[in-house]
């Protein structure tokens, strides 16, 4: 049984499996998103202080969660590829990065959209937003480094070292940003402090988070297949399997 799983570690073997998995995750993502949006926009009550504009947290918070979660997963796969020398792991990390960066950007953008009607500014240097910004830089750095080498193996391994370095430093960076923020801003409130949670609000955010998770898997698997095709392009099986 274990050998069967190990067999999947070869890009060639995983390619069709990934292809079959994508539709399932896509459907799950759509269903969960529909449920989450329904809860978020129709079921959850209007907030006492922030009115309707707060509803953007149903996108903002799940996006922020995913941005951090994907980074960890990305670092995990990159590290695995470095240690075990498996090509597919490095490719998976490459596939995850753009989605992670997208969620980070989405979190920043929705955070900004939330800030304007609520606090009157498009951007405030609060701890969470600033940390998200730095996380975006970390993602962009990883993507940039991966793209800076002609040799994909070198790119994978260098990217892995960077991802691990980033993963170790992220808690420290986050802590230092919180420190910096409390130091300088004193009493000012967090731009993205969520209103006190009604159960329905939490449910809505969780549903959207799960939807984002399923979406990430589907999209990353699709991107992974593209990367596999590009990297193994001179292999016979790629030509034969075109369209599968």
């Amino acid at each position, binding site marked *: 049984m274990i050998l069967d799983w190990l067999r999947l570690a070869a890009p060639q073997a995983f390619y069709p499996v990934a292809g079959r998995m994508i539709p399932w995750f896509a459907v799950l993502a759509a269903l969960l998103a529909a449920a989450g949006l329904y809860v978020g926009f129709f079921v959850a009550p209007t907030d006492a202080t922030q009115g309707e504009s707060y509803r953007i947290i149903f996108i903002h918070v799940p996006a922020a969660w995913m941005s951090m979660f994907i980074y960890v997963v990305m670092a995990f796969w990159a590290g695995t590829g*470095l240690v075990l020398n498996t090509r597919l792991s490095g490719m998976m990390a490459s596939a995850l990065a753009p989605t992670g960066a997208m969620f980070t950007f989405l979190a920043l953008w929705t955070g900004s959209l939330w800030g304007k009607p609520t606090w009157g500014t498009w951007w405030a240097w609060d701890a969470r937003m600033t940390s998200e910004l*730095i996380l975006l*830089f*970390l993602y*962009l*750095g990883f993507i*940039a*480094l991966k793209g*800076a*080498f002609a040799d994909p193996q*070198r790119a994978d*391994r*260098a990217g892995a*070292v*960077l991802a*691990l*370095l*980033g993963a*170790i*430093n992220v808690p*420290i*960076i986050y*802590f*230092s*940003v919180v*420190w*910096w923020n409390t*130091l300088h801003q004193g009493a000012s409130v967090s731009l993205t402090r969520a209103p006190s949670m009604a159960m329905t609000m939490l449910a809505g955010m969780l549903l959207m988070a799960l939807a984002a998770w399923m979406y990430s898997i589907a999209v990353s698997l699709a991107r992974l297949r593209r990367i596999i095709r590009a990297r193994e392009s001179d292999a016979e099986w790629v030509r034969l399997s075109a369209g599968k």
Partner: protein
Amino acid sequence: MSGFALLVGRDLRIALRRRGDALNVLVFFVVAASLFALGVGPEPRLLAAMGAGVVWVAALLAAMLSLPRMFAADLADGTLEQFLLAPQPLLGVVAAKIASHWMLTGLPLTLIAPLIGLQYHLPASALGTLVVSLLIGTPVLSALGAAGAALTLGARGGGALLGLLLLPLYVPVLVFGAGAVIAVQNGLEPGAHLSLLGAFLAVSSLVGPLAALAALRIALD
């Protein structure tokens, strides 16, 4: 003589014969710091409020400018691979490169910083803390910088790529380092900031060289 001392000595000797490189870094530091003042105007209280941050950011940028040189020349002339093939502890080799980089970059910056501090009207007490914070923080720049420099050896994208990789990682140094000086300016104790800076130094002294060694091996593969 130990391998560490040998390598540091060699690096310093080479730097002495190419004095321009080390001086460039210092000059850049002073110029960059001055640019901020030129940008925001000469109002003393504004400058005093900005001073710690400006000195620290200028130090970060200056350190980063000097990083590509850490390994690039050695890679090109074949000495880098000889270092990693010698019967010396490999982490010691990396540590030696970091140490010589710091001696040629971080240390001079630290010594010149008080002059910039004066330009920004920092009070005397703050100047002392500025020097201490740089003394603790600039080695971190070299340690993590070594990892960045090794990762980008031979990569397309040059200094900008290195900056993109390192600046997020440098944020804690900046926050704690500048924060210590600002605390003193506000009449508070800098102890907490400096301790955190010291803790970060301890962490990066381990993580930086390990990452740098891994990256060097990847670059030489």
